[in-house]
């Protein structure tokens, strides 16, 4: 009898050699064949057919709708990076390469379900109905920004679409999602909550707390880990010594599932299954979506400093957009004309939204003091008066 609970050999991270992070060759970069080995759900086969065992049975319109949204998200990403390079917005953090993971999972949620986002899921917000203008206004932090110019770009909200508040500290939304779902369970409302986070976030206090509480109280939470290989410059093999992220669920009595995150069909299926489990009262699920961050971490990051560009090639070959496009071309009659029309349309939409956003004034001085509390206490009233009467900072004379 051996009582040693050994984790299986590592399949997800370093391509070769043993798990000895401290001695490991740090230049080793995860290749898809390592990452996608083992028990990973895949639906969209390399030959362009769908594995019936994991087919979410999407309608033609659903598939085309998802594909179009993937394209829109990518174009938007591209334009926002350009705007940042031009100095017109301050920052952008995108989802290049992760569109299938993000859109597939958000799509699988029911209308009454909720999303507790990380910072890369603007695609999910658009899917939940957030107007493009609202998003772009946030990128400019202007007076129409849903968060009133208080947070950085990519930190918007959209309550109407059951899309939560974004904050920068890694992981905090995980525990909050568990609490939200738990509250729904207490109130006997059949809703599920989707919480997004990265591979790096699995090391946070909140991953531990969120999964543990959800496990104990069977909160209908779907913990969706976008394993994109990196936490800024830190590769997954430096993040944990566990063989996979999915198996971390064992520590919490939470079933874990691994899915090809660049396969939008598989992502929809895995997330739907998790929603069904939650709805049956069986509690939370941890989904590890294997994908890859094809861009830098954000516009502030230069990935060349730690990741030779050619190591991306095998992952580029698995680009979720290209894979989905092949499918819609093969099976649903999509073609270059349709693609061009879509791109043109999106271009125009973005241009219009940007133009409107740039024309919009900055948030008012008074807005600096609102919403700290439900109403203004004396000390903030005094500080507001001070700012109102005082000289203005350079460049803010307008409002």
């Amino acid at each position, binding site marked *: 009898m051996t009582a040693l609970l050994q984790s299986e050999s590592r399949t997800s991270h370093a391509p070769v050699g043993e798990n000895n992070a401290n001695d490991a060759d740090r230049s080793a970069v995860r290749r898809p064949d390592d990452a996608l080995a083992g028990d990973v759900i895949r639906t969209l086969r390399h030959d362009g057919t769908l594995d019936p065992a994991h087919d979410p049975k999407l309608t033609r319109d659903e598939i085309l709708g998802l594909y179009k949204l993937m394209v829109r998200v990518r174009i938007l990403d591209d334009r926002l990076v350009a705007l940042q390079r031009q100095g017109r917005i301050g920052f952008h953090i995108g989802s290049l390469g992760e569109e299938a993971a993000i859109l597939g999972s958000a799509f699988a949620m029911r209308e009454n379900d909720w999303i507790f986002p990380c910072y890369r899921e603007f695609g999910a917000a658009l899917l939940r109905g957030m107007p493009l203008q609202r998003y772009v206004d946030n990128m400019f932090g202007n007076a129409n920004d849903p*968060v009133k110019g208080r947070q950085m770009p990519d*930190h918007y909200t959209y309550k109407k679409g059951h899309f939560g508040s974004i904050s920068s500290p890694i992981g905090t939304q995980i*525990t909050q999602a568990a*609490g939200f779902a738990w509250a729904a369970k207490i109130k006997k409302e059949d809703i599920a909550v989707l919480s997004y986070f990265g591979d790096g976030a699995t090391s946070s206090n909140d991953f531990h707390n969120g999964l543990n*509480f959800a496990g104990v109280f069977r909160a209908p939470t779907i913990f969706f880990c976008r394993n994109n290989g990196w936490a800024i410059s830190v590769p997954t093999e430096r993040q944990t010594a566990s063989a996979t992220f999915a198996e971390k669920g064992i520590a919490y009595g939470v079933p874990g599932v691994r899915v090809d995150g660049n396969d939008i069909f598989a992502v929809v299926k895995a997330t739907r299954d998790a929603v069904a489990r939650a709805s049956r009262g069986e509690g939370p699920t941890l989904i590890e979506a294997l994908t890859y961050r094809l861009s830098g971490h954000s516009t502030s990051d230069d990935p060349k400093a730690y990741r030779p560009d050619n190591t991306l090639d095998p992952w580029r070959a698995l680009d979720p957009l290209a894979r989905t496009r092949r499918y819609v071309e093969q099976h649903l009659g999509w073609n270059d004309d349709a693609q061009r029309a879509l791109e043109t349309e999106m271009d125009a939409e973005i241009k219009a939204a940007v133009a409107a956003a740039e024309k919009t004034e900055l948030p008012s001085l008074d807005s600096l003091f*609102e*919403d700290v*509390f*439900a109403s203004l206490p004396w000390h903030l009233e005094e500080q507001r008066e001070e700012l109102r009467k005082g000289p203005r900072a350079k460049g803010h004379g307008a409002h």
Partner: protein
Amino acid sequence: MPQMNMVQAINDALRIEMRRDHRVVVLGEDVGKVGGVFRVTQGLYDEFGDDRVIDTPLSEGGIIGTAIGMALYGLVPVPEIQFSDFIFPAYDQIVSELAKYRYRSGGEYPAKLVIRTPVGGGIRGGHYHSQSPEAQFIHVAGLKVVCPASPADAKGLLLASIRDPDPVLFFEPKRIYRAAKGEVPEGDFVVPLGKANVVKPGVHVTVIAWGAMLYEALEASNQAGKQGIDCEVIDLRTLWPLDIDTIIASVKKTGRVVVVHEAPKSCGLGGEIVSLINEKAFLHLEAPPKRVTGFDTPFPYTLENEYLPLAHRILPAIVETARY
């Protein structure tokens, strides 16, 4: 009116509000079946069941993080942190999340909850069962902070805190959990947040205190009275946002101030009060405002009564200030 101690008064408030408002849930370590290590939640589990009075895993970050989620859903969680010394594993969720939620979401997601936690020394708890971390929360914009000194205030302020739209840290001075007894109005009863209480009017020196130290301030003031010094003693009750009008009115009358608190002196609430008085009543000051506080050391075990700003340390400060 019935006589209650502070534990009973808080328990009464929780029961009243949980009966009235079904969104209110209590969660924390040992709060359920056993009713909390100080028995403040005793009996609630039996009355309201496991869905509303919830024993949680041992994680303050988990308690506050899930409570925020519950609040976003629309419940009104009243989590308990077993000792305020153990609030720090949840500090990130409190200062980065709870305090900023309404603001950072443009008002779309207010996160309303009341964190109850025993505070301060007096039970021989050493480093980790004695601290008073109010300043570490006041400095962070977005939180209200309350600390009652009497059973009636404990009840009335807790009910006000639960009904207030903003997140509240409700510090319960454990030294007087059972020692402070008094009449407590029956049934629904609210003491408004943001209003200090002039416990003893006087003309020579303003003494500002709260929680367990209020009684020490009163004791020292009584002793000072025997030397002809007539103190005005203010119980702050709501520590933030504080009742600046009451403070300034008193200082304008007396021109002399002593602030008392258990927390270490440096960057404590005392310093803030002194600075505000400078800003608003400078020309009325006839002596330098004094702070009588815990020392800038960890909270000790054996020498607890040397560390605390008890009456024997407050009295000389009052006398010095009066005679300045």
